[in-house]
């Protein structure tokens, strides 16, 4: 039944009737639009979930033909086939890990952009941090040794030696001067 037909049939006389008609019209339009949307939206929504998961998984996987591209961005035939495989497995309800394992079984760790942490890949994962620690250690030792050298310098440097000698010389000069004046006064007294 068309909403307009309903309004005509109600014969709008007063405000109340008009309000009722509007409510009916809104209801009719509301049910119309939601029911028509629901028919299209349902398959679209489930597809979107699958596609989103596909992109999420495929971004972590390497295309084997064009090796610097991810499986999600590559247009190689094989990438397309592999995406189809991943899609199929998502629909089957496999977990992300199961799907990745499926590809690793066939193509090796190379397909993973983020290699698994295992003894074989320890050097890869922890190597940079180990290098950093070694570098820090070397730096600390170097600083410590330099400080030790500076302290030693304060005690045995040529300069402090010179100062000592200079003081010693001045003392000697002073002694000589005192001796000289003493002998001079003695001579004067005599």
């Amino acid at each position, binding site marked *: 039944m068309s909403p307009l037909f309903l309004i005509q049939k109600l014969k709008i006389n007063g405000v109340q009737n008009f309000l009722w008609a509007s409510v009916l019209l809104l209801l009719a339009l509301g049910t119309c639009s939601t029911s028509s949307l629901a028919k299209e939206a349902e398959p679209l929504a489930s597809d979107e979930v699958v596609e989103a998961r596909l992109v999420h998984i495929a971004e972590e996987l390497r295309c084997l033909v064009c090796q610097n591209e991810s499986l999600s961005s590559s247009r190689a035939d*094989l990438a397309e086939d592999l995406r189809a495989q991943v899609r199929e497995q998502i629909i089957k309800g496999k977990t992300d890990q199961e799907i990745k394992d499926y590809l690793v079984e066939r193509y090796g760790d190379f397909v993973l952009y983020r290699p698994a942490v295992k003894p074989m890949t320890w050097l890869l994962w922890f190597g940079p941090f180990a290098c950093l620690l070694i570098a820090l250690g070397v730096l600390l030792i170097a600083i410590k040794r330099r400080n030790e050298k500076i302290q030693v310098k304060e005690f045995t440097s040529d300069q402090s030696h010179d100062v000592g000698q200079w003081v010693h010389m001045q003392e000697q000069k002073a002694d000589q001067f005192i001796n000289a004046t003493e002998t001079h006064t003695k001579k004067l007294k005599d």
Partner: protein
Amino acid sequence: MKKFLIPLVLFGVLVLFLAVGLKRDPHEIPSPLINKAAPDFSLQTLTGTAPFSPQDLKGKVWMLNVWATWCVSCREEHPVLVAFSKQIGVPIVGLSYKEIQPQDDPEKKLSTEALLKLARSRGSVWLERHGNPYTLSVMDLDGRVGIDYGVYGVPETYIIDKNGVIRYKQIGPVTPQTLSETIIPIIKGLENS
């Protein structure tokens, strides 16, 4: 004095690693399937005989060669394989990999049967023209078996032992050199074991 040698030695080690890395082909991805059971399948043959499965060759050392008529490197490899098939008695099974490419049927109008028929006629014509080294050839139209075997570029060749275990994978065309240096010694070793 000796301290100056430490960075020099480290630099030498780095150069050595880089030099080795330069010589390796990044397109040769080591297969995780080596020393694992060859994935099972059952596929239609090129000639239309009974479907073939790797089980049929249990107890024999055999080769699986992935090929296609659209594959340029296969043409380079083919005469080597033809000569090899006459020289040595191991069965060579051809895996006709995705003979019909997406651009051959862009609107996906053709039925599976029509695709199989087209692939068979193309493959047969090609083998007639260039020689047939295969004991038989199987049709992997959608490339699913190829994925199971970790195929990512045609041609590829697998050596499978008497127990159905993959022992070697050759990525790229088989050359007279790889045949004499690698493939034939491996096959002889497996046949004697």
